[in-house]
């Protein structure tokens, strides 16, 4: 699959001291991973808000649900409730593999919003009709090897929703392999004049040093960082062109 630009997500996850540029609607943040923790939920059997297993009937849809913790269905597994942890900003980065592959998965980032992966010039995607676009399945992101076909980068304070459609002629309970990395990171702060982080920010922006470019949400429609996170992370996103033009002395 890598020949088509689709890779196992484990090849995309960052290691401590890796650099990254995070794209939000307001602009870009530049950071260095300080800690990385792999998070795995496998097998994860899809449940509803009451904790009951969801068995999607043949040729039927499942309305939007969070991926809830079966031990306490009030909890969304892919949710970061605080903007920081142990004094560091944090994000989730990963992917989900699914089975059986006859189940089409339509993510909504954040919940209730548009479905990523839509061709720009087509009508809205209807998971309830099992539209053959805007979905991914266990064929694109296999249960045993989740891929970046649908790469999730989740900031604190947002819920991710998923809708489903069962193409098969028999009922199925979707089962997931939820494979994420939790990054605690150090944010680089651009300063007017010569600042201590200006050079590394500029080098990342100009691609003088290797760094991962991650979009929060999805390409073409990044999520906003939000006033609360901006305040608590104590950093202001900047444009890529501003980053490239920073004064480094």
């Amino acid at each position, binding site marked *: *699959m890598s020949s*088509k630009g689709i890779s196992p997500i484990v090849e995309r996850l960052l290691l401590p001291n890796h650099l990254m540029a995070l794209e939000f609607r307001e602009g870009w943040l530049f950071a260095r991973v300080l800690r990385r923790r792999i998070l795995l939920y496998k097998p994860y059997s899809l449940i509803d808000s009451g904790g009951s297993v969801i068995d999607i009937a043949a040729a039927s849809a499942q309305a939007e649900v969070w991926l809830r913790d079966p031990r306490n269905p009030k909890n969304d597994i892919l949710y970061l409730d605080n903007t920081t942890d142990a004094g560091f900003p944090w994000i989730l980065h990963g992917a989900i593999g699914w*089975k*059986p*592959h*006859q189940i089409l998965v339509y993510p909504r980032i954040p919940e209730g919003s548009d479905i990523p992966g839509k061709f720009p010039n087509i009508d809205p995607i209807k998971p309830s009709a099992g539209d053959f676009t805007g979905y991914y*399945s*266990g*064929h*694109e992101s*296999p249960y045993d090897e989740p891929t970046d076909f649908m790469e999730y980068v989740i900031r604190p304070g947002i819920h991710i929703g998923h809708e489903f459609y069962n*193409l*098969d*002629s028999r009922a199925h309970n979707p089962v997931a392999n939820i494979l994420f990395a939790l990054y605690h990171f150090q944010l680089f702060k651009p300063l007017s004049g010569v600042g201590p982080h200006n050079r590394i920010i500029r080098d990342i922006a100009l691609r003088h040093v290797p760094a991962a470019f991650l979009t929060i949400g999805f390409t073409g429609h990044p999520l906003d960082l939000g006033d609360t996170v901006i305040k608590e992370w104590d950093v202001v996103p900047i444009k890529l062109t501003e980053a490239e033009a920073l004064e480094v002395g």
Partner: protein
Amino acid sequence: MPALTKEEIRERYRTVNVYIIGTRTPFFDAVPERKMRNIVAITFFGDGVTTRTMDIEKLKEDGTYEMLYDKINLAAPEKVQLPIEGRNPENPIIVLEGGTRLYGGYVTGTTVAATCEYWDNEP
């Protein structure tokens, strides 16, 4: 996208049993246009009473029938399986394109139980 894995083929594997009545009984509805249906095996079970001659036909999209297997001798106490030796999901004996349909039939006698095993290239 890569070819289907063995596990994905197993996830799609279906077994359908029908009772063949008369000259033409469908094994299933017409294959949806977006799919190719791979027939892995067909087994006819003799009823222990009457020997029959079975056949398998394909209903094409133009409405005509194409004979695929003719004059399959089914002795009353026996069963006949196609393929005769073993089966391999990756080497189907028949491939049906979208819009076509598979029929089993015989000329005289009572109903015959038949089992068809298949998988589709699209979910």
